[in-house]
């Protein structure tokens, strides 16, 4: 569902550009809002959320999909935890559909999906590994790296049950915005994937804007 934001960029309290292949790790307080802008189009922002008070509570794709009865995320979606509590709400979306089935790329899955000799190419889960090692203060460990959201990714499932990574439906400047319903840790890998045509083999930067309540 396309829903434009009423928030003015001039009133944002934070603005961070994250290049492809880098990570973002920070707390978003209850009531605060973050916008991810797909600056150049068809990028994937691989995102995980954790409860700041207890990171053993994390985003759950299963609970989110089941409770909304739909595979795709868009404005109006409530992002649920492994305790089935609402962690965040998507409050604006100019892209229209985001994936939470396909997971994040990893060096290991790259060997399976593309070629055994791709094993040393950069991948989202490696960015997350570096993030949690450089910031142990968040209490996130490898065991907490779970099924994520791929903002701006288009992974449709056909009625016959086929799952495909289609060309993106995002475009330069499209954005998605979510409001925290509890204090959350936001962990994003801006996807470095060079093997998937869905980003035109061209990973590009994203912009993160934040507003306080």
């Amino acid at each position: 569902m396309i829903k434009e934001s009423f928030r003015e960029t001039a009133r944002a309290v934070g603005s961070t550009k994250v290049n492809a292949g880098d990570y973002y790790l920070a707390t978003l307080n209850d009531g605060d809002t973050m916008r991810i802008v797909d600056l150049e189009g068809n990028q994937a922002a691989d995102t995980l959320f954790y409860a700041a008070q207890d990171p053993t509570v994390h985003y759950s794709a299963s609970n989110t999909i089941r409770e909304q009865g739909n595979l795709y995320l868009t404005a109006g979606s409530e992002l649920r935890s492994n305790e089935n509590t609402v962690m965040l709400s998507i409050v604006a979306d100019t892209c229209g559909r985001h994936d939470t089935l396909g997971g994040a790329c990893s060096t290991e899955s790259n060997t399976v999906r593309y070629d055994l000799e791709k094993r040393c190419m950069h991948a989202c889960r490696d960015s997350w590994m570096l993030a949690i090692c450089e910031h142990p203060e968040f209490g996130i460990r490898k065991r907490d790296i779970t099924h994520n959201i791929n903002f701006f990714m288009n992974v449709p499932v056909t009625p016959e049950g086929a799952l495909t990574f289609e060309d993106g439906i995002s475009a330069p400047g499209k954005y998605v915005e979510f409001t925290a319903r509890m204090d959350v840790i936001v962990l994003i890998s801006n996807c470095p994937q060079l093997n998937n045509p869905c980003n035109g083999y061209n990973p590009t930067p994203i912009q993160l804007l934040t507003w306080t309540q």
Partner: protein
Amino acid sequence: MSRKVIDPHYQTSLSAGSHWSFKLRRGLALKITDELGGANVGMVLYSADNLLERYNAPDTLKCQHTFHLTQGHCLYSDMGHILASIIHDTVGGHETICGNSTRDSVRNAFGERDYQRDRNSWHQNGHDAFLVELAKYGLERRDLPANINWFSKCVIKKEGDIALTELASPPGSQITLRMDMDCIVLLHTCPHPLTVHTQYPETHVRIDLVDASPVTSDDACVNHCPENRRGFDNNYLYHLGSV
């Protein structure tokens, strides 16, 4: 040298609302039979060598370009290995995205869980069932990935709407998993979270452990897609040097 096995090494059965976990070694096959029909068997798998390596639904689905799991598909870990392969399936599709029933969802559907009153017929839920089994290996809720719900199938409608297929599993439905790595397997027989039953289901699930035929170059799971051939190449490397 092949060994012909007529009788299973081990056989047991689980009634509805049960949970269990065990280690299965590579080369065994786990045959699960829904004897009465309408069962749901929740399952997650962990590498027995390293519990941080576990079943990964997204990698499993995207590596094989499928939303449903059926014969010919492999179950991938988050580390690019194949934990197990589906070598036989009479249902034709099982789901791995809807997660578990919870204490709340079971209470809303069937009434309060009350062991004092109901004893073995208590209304156990899938989430708590997994928590109990996880704790036995030093694991906890953070370690629970999206599980498989064997014998439960989802249908995808327009625009991504999902619903549970009614009567997906007739009596006698069966799946057989070949273990391709040594695994800790957690399973439960609690109702599916989207169950349409109005009474807590009475089901009977039989478990048989048998020897699996060795993986050969013409194996249907290996040859299902180029991705699976590379997955088995990763398993080859993983087991290199082991007896």
